[in-house]
């Protein structure tokens, strides 16, 4: 007889994950090892985020799952349906209505509140991995706050390319102490992490690490005084809602390479369209 517990994992495992999360909250940005389990979705597809969500979700929660900012992408749909199946909890696409938002590669455009938790899926929790592939050596660098090599890397980018070349997963300093990977969100989203009212939890299943940024914690993107951090976005306007400030996806619409830009955050885009229609109706009356 095969039966699954509420939210798939057994209660002891979930408690173990919550304990690791408490430690993570106590040391903002610090990578806490945890006994990651095999989840029924492949490693690299969000197993860390899924375990965090499974550990904190309760009957009364409302879950939103996004991938690339969108609720309708295949991976987000698969994860949301997994939680509906394993918890019976209601899922939503509305950012404002969700109590837990699990995300891959984006932070919603709409500002999050103290009543919300955002769970990031993290492929590579170690921000120094491209510079130091040996994890024990990297861990020592964190212990000693030895982050000079990361600044050297950014400096080398500037001398080679005239600018910092990390467009996503740009490293951040948390609470002035710990260098942290923000997960592969575009640099555009980095500023949203700073002093965010919502609790931010990060899960890396394959690498067996959890970390967290408590509400209202300072999060600074690494930069230089004379080369300040530059959060980039495509210079365009959303073809649906007309937003000039949201993060945009580039869509190729014919074989001549004609392109359009659309909001990556589908809920934000839909909300703006609804709002515009409502105003048009009111204006008409």
């Amino acid at each position, binding site marked *: 007889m*095969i*039966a*699954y517990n509420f939210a798939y994992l057994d209660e002891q495992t979930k408690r173990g994950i919550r304990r690791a999360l408490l430690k993570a909250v106590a040391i903002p940005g610090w990578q806490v090892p945890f006994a990651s389990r095999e989840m*029924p*979705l*492949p490693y690299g597809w969000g197993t860390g985020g899924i375990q965090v969500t499974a550990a904190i979700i309760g009957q009364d929660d409302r879950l939103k799952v996004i991938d*690339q900012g*969108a609720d309708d992408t*295949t*991976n987000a*749909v*698969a994860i949301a*349906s*997994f939680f*509906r*199946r394993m918890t019976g909890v209601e899922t939503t696409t509305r950012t404002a209505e969700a109590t837990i938002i699990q995300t891959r590669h984006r932070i919603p455009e709409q500002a999050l509140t103290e009543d919300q938790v955002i769970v990031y899926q993290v492929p*590579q929790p170690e921000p120094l*991995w*491209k510079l*130091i*592939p040996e994890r024990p050596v990297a861990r020592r660098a964190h212990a000693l706050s030895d982050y000079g090599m990361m600044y050297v890397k950014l400096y080398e980018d500037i*001398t*080679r*390319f*005239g600018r910092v*070349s990390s467009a996503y997963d740009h490293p951040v300093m948390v609470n002035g102490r710990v260098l942290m990977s923000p997960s592969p969100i575009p640099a555009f989203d980095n500023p949203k992490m700073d002093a965010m009212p919502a609790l931010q939890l990060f899960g890396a299943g394959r690498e067996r690490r959890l970390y967290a940024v408590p509400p209202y914690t300072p999060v600074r993107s690494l930069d230089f005084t004379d080369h300040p951090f530059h959060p980039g976005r495509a210079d365009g306007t959303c073809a649906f809602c007309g937003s000039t400030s949201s993060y945009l*996806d*580039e*869509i*190729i*619409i*014919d*074989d001549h*390479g004609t392109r359009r830009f*659309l909001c990556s955050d589908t809920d934000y885009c839909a909300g703006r369209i609804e709002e515009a229609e409502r105003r048009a109706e009111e204006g008409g009356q």
Partner: protein
Amino acid sequence: MAFVATKGGEDAIAAAHAWRADRRRGDGEGCTLRQATTSFGRAIDRVMAEGALYDPDLAARALLQAEGDLVEAAFLLRSYRATQPRLVDARPIDTTAMRVQRRVSAIFKDVLGGQRLGPTADYSHRLFDTGETAPESAPDPVAAEPVSPLPSAMGILGGETLLEAIPAAGHDAPPADLTTMPLDFPASRPIRLQALARGDEGFLLSLAYSTQRGYGNTHPFVGELRMGEVAVSVVPPELGFAIEIGDIVVTECQMVNQFTGSKTVPPQFTRGYGLSVGHADRRAMSMALVERALRADELGEATGSPAQDPEFVLSHCDNIQATGFVEHLKLPHYVDFQSELEIIRAIRRQADEQRAEDGMDRKKEDGDDRV
């Protein structure tokens, strides 16, 4: 059963084979060729790739004969392949003319011709089907019509020259053929691709994974992954024009990797290429990652990681060679071992004698002291 160092052993070998055949059949007749062909499609694809021969029926036969041991099955196929005459070289297959069942791009949300999942388990929940956890809504199986031709999703980047041109083979002559010449270094790109195409999937996978963890990072994105049937055509010398001789299913992966370049050379995306017979996402993607990692030296990147070392990768990726040599250690080595025994005894004897001599000297010295 006693083990005796016998000469010959014909009876022993016959008995081993009989035992194995008995075990394979189990209680009944075992799995039929037809069942194997329909139920173990991905295993057959892997056997064909590593066996370097496209023949699903023979691969299924090999799989059964090898008790499901994939490397052993590929070995059977490779051995059979060696007996076949080489009549004519096929023309290069054209994957843009593929009858596409599956095509995904991870770099554009939508691409011309659309994202097509095809028959994939990618988004399935790996749960045992208990009957209680039926999918929320199970649509009728839809066999979507394959589309053809479908332009490559990479085309748009090439048009903007953001993507490097397809790297040259190194010369204009027909590419070298790994099956007719020994592997030699430096290995040209065609040779590297040929070696990887028949390389062990586990080896390629682990090497590819190592690049993702910092041991030779390639900053990869899946520009396009496509699977479907392509036509194979040949130009028979007596005809002088191309005729199609059949279709094969292949999976092609084109990786887009982060730019190189400098302040003077404009940055550009580079390519990594993977191709496998059959429906084999994991294999094609691993190959593309390793192929790109092997270009590190050519592109002036830092080297030193295992996946970036052509000699290390190409010399060890063939699992027929690897399994043979690893497992050959089971063969008798009594002669070698006997000579090792003699040597180690001699060395120990010498050491004992030396120690005894030193001891006597010391006693003598001690004795002298007492005087």
